[in-house]
């Protein structure tokens, strides 16, 4: 069950799999073998080609070249339904759970056979009891926590007694405690003979859980290893091709309060959203405050309330640089010094059909890109050029359309644009989500420099490691309530994990939270 098995007994073997899109080669002649009962890590940074490879195995995408062997026999996997028939199950990174359907309906959709409702419910109960994954088949999935949704996905896979389970970045949105529960389930499945392909870029987890690791870099296999025998440094080097660098956060005395939320409550407009309850928060100049928590716990609403996309009814619930900003719109808040990098890059942070210079005009009024009701094109182009140069954005110049940039480069451009607009308060959502390691480092370093220059920075992120690396203080947003912000130094990840379930004495009214697990 450990180490590499003989090729004959391989449950899944990929030979020379290649997949190219018009501009990029996502997978370049990839070989991979997974033995029965093995937990096999597929390690690689964002954009290394992991997801494409897994979609090929699950039949969502077809390879351009190469062949697949399943339990020793050659197969062509043409659809997810066929993959499921073979015994392959997949748990997706951004769960494939439909909000408007019940648990049972969600499960029925991904089952190949048609079962009467009663039989299905019985089988769901049976599987969920056997593996200790309690779910209620009749419940609507909206309003479920991320952990519950993942449970639904796992049960959905287990119902078909899979022999290979693909887990795509399963822990990216889980609390540390939930990660341990998940690992127990996975180990148990492996003991029962199920092979597990575990996709991740988190080195600690892979070293803890996996028997074997295959490392992908730029679409190619760059090596394989027994993770337990490796260090984070050596694994990281294989993944990135160079030593992983970390950014440095030197202690610094905080300045005056720049952003202040006082008893902020806001009802959500989204029927599947989360309303904010009694949020209190202070961010000082020269300070990075992080807000941890799983998306869907009010993050979207909090961002909208601070950026001004939604106005608050309570007077002074939001203060920027000492001024009441609760009823100011985003443009007015910008004149007070607020800058904002939203989570959604294309379509919110940047306009897809416009070139980079025009995308600077979007928020660049304060830099003189709009004057007397006229757009100043030449100034906009100069501004875009400078941003591209300063933040090492790879693109075809300032007239390249925003949607021609890769995710990491577009994020560097947006972060760069906002930083070059001289923020007093900088609001950043998921700064490095889906961004490659090099760009992540640059973005984090830029935020730290901004803080060193005296700006107040608020970062909302799902990535706990990132928050611990760059934040002076950390708070947790859970079910629309915000915990107190605590200094990061001396704060345990497990504590934050407990808070993420909603178990904290909030900075607002303390609410007894019923168990309903993560």
């Amino acid at each position, binding site marked *: 069950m450990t180490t590499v098995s003989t090729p004959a007994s391989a449950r899944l073997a990929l030979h020379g799999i290649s997949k190219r899109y018009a501009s990029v080669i996502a997978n370049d002649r990839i070989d991979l073998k997974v033995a029965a009962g093995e937990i096999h890590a597929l390690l690689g940074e964002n954009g290394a080609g992991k997801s*494409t490879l897994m*979609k090929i195995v*699950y*039949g*969502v*995408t077809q390879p351009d070249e190469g062949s697949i062997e399943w339990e020793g026999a050659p197969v062509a996997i043409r*659809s*997810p*339904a066929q*993959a*499921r028939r073979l015994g392959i199950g997949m748990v*997706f990174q951004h769960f*494939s*759970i*439909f*909000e*408007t*359907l019940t648990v049972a*309906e969600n499960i*029925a*959709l*991904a089952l190949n056979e*048609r079962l009467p409702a009663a039989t299905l419910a019985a089988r769901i109960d049976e599987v969920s009891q056997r593996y200790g994954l309690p779910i209620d088949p009749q419940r609507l999935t909206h309003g479920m926590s991320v952990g519950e949704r993942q449970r639904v996905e796992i049960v959905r896979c287990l119902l078909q007694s899979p022999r290979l389970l693909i887990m795509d970045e399963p822990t990216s949105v889980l609390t540390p405690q939930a990660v341990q529960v998940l690992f127990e389930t996975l180990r148990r499945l492996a003991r029962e003979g199920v092979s597990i392909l575990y996709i991740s870029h988190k080195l600690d987890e892979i070293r803890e859980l996996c028997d074997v690791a295959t490392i992908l870099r730029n679409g190619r296999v760059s090596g394989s290893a027994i993770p337990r025998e490796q260090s984070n440094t050596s694994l990281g080097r294989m993944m990135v091709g160079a030593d992983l660098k970390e950014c440095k956060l030197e202690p610094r005395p905080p300045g005056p309060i720049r952003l202040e939320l006082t008893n902020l409550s806001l009802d959500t*407009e*989204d*029927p599947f959203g989360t309303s904010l309850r009694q949020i209190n928060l202070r961010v000082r100049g020269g300070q990075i405050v992080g807000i941890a928590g799983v998306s869907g716990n009010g993050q979207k609403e909090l961002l909208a309330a601070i950026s001004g996309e939604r106005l608050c009814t309570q007077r002074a619930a939001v203060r920027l640089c000492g001024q009441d900003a609760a009823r100011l719109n985003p443009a007015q808040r910008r004149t007070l010094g607020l800058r904002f990098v939203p989570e959604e890059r294309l379509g919110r942070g940047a306009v897809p059909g416009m070139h980079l210079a025009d995308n600077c005009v979007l928020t660049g009024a304060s830099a003189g890109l709009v004057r007397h009701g006229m757009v100043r094109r030449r100034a906009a182009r100069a501004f875009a050029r400078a941003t591209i140069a300063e933040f090492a954005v790879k693109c075809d110049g300032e007239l390249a359309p925003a949607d021609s940039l890769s995710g990491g480069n577009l994020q560097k451009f947006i972060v760069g644009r906002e930083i070059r607009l001289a923020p007093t308060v900088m609001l950043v959502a998921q700064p490095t989500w889906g961004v490659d390691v090099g760009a992540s480092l640059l973005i984090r370093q830029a935020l730290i420099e901004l803080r060193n220059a005296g700006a107040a920075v608020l970062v909302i992120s799902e990535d706990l490691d990132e928050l611990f690396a760059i934040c002076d203080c950390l708070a947790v947003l859970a079910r629309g309530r915000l915990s107190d912000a605590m200094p990061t130094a001396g704060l345990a990840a497990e504590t934050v994990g407990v808070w993420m379930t909603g178990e904290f004495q909030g900075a607002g009214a303390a609410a007894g939270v019923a168990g309903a697990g993560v």
Partner: protein
Amino acid sequence: MNLAVWVTIAASAVGAATPLILAALGELVTERAGVLNLGVEGMMLIGAMSGFAVGVSSGSLWLGYLAAAASGMLIALLFGVLTLSLQTNQVATGLALTLFGVGLSAFAGRSFVGLPIRPLLPLRIPVLSELPWIGPLLFHHDPLVYLSLLLCALIAWVLKRTRVGLRLRAVGESPEMAHVLGEPVIRIRYLAVLFGGAMSGIAGAYLSTALTPMWTEGMSAGRGWIALALVVFGTWKPWRVLAGAYLFGTVTVLQLYAQGLGVHVPSEFLSMLPYAATIMVLVAICRDPKTILLNQPASLGRSFHPGY
């Protein structure tokens, strides 16, 4: 006199509502799959023209309805190819479909203008049709009236209870997720669009062979748009769409009888009623954004391509 008049009004409201029901149910299915087809008016006109033309030429109304459904599907297929395979903007393409349908039906139907046709007749159900009040109200309608009710029940059941409905709803909520689970998103959307086309075609043929048995250019007079509005009004639920259609049928018929009922308002203002009512009803339903957000298929109007 009053009760008799009201029964007549109610009975003819059923007729006026039927084309709206048919077209709106078709569009409802299309929209539940996430596709917004604004070409209902055009498809209805094509259906009205071809149904009438085939009905007159062959002497068989049923062949006419068949032709109407087929031609509605054909022109819906054009919409499907453009929006689903070629990923054009659904709003613009739907408008194009309506404008094209107006032009094509006028052009192809020119030699049928003013011809007489034997209209679709009400069923005579022994005993029941003869019942006072209840008879004309419930048991003296043409077959399509009953078909529209049947279809409403069927669609409601399929959407709610069957796997087909489940897959359709999944595609409408998130084509991306449905795709990775292995649903043939584009194929399902094609089928939904074709169904919508067939229903709009039949609805059009009902206009030209039953409601006002003749063919004139542009005879749908905005009914396709009203049907579209009814889908919103019915919050994408079949039974509510049905109720909305009967409400509109009543408004339409009331204005015809208004003069007789002693309302002395210029006929033009009475004719404005259905259009004004559409606006008012839409405002009423849209006032609370959550009503729309909760019920509208989440991917409505958005293109999808499976090319990951």
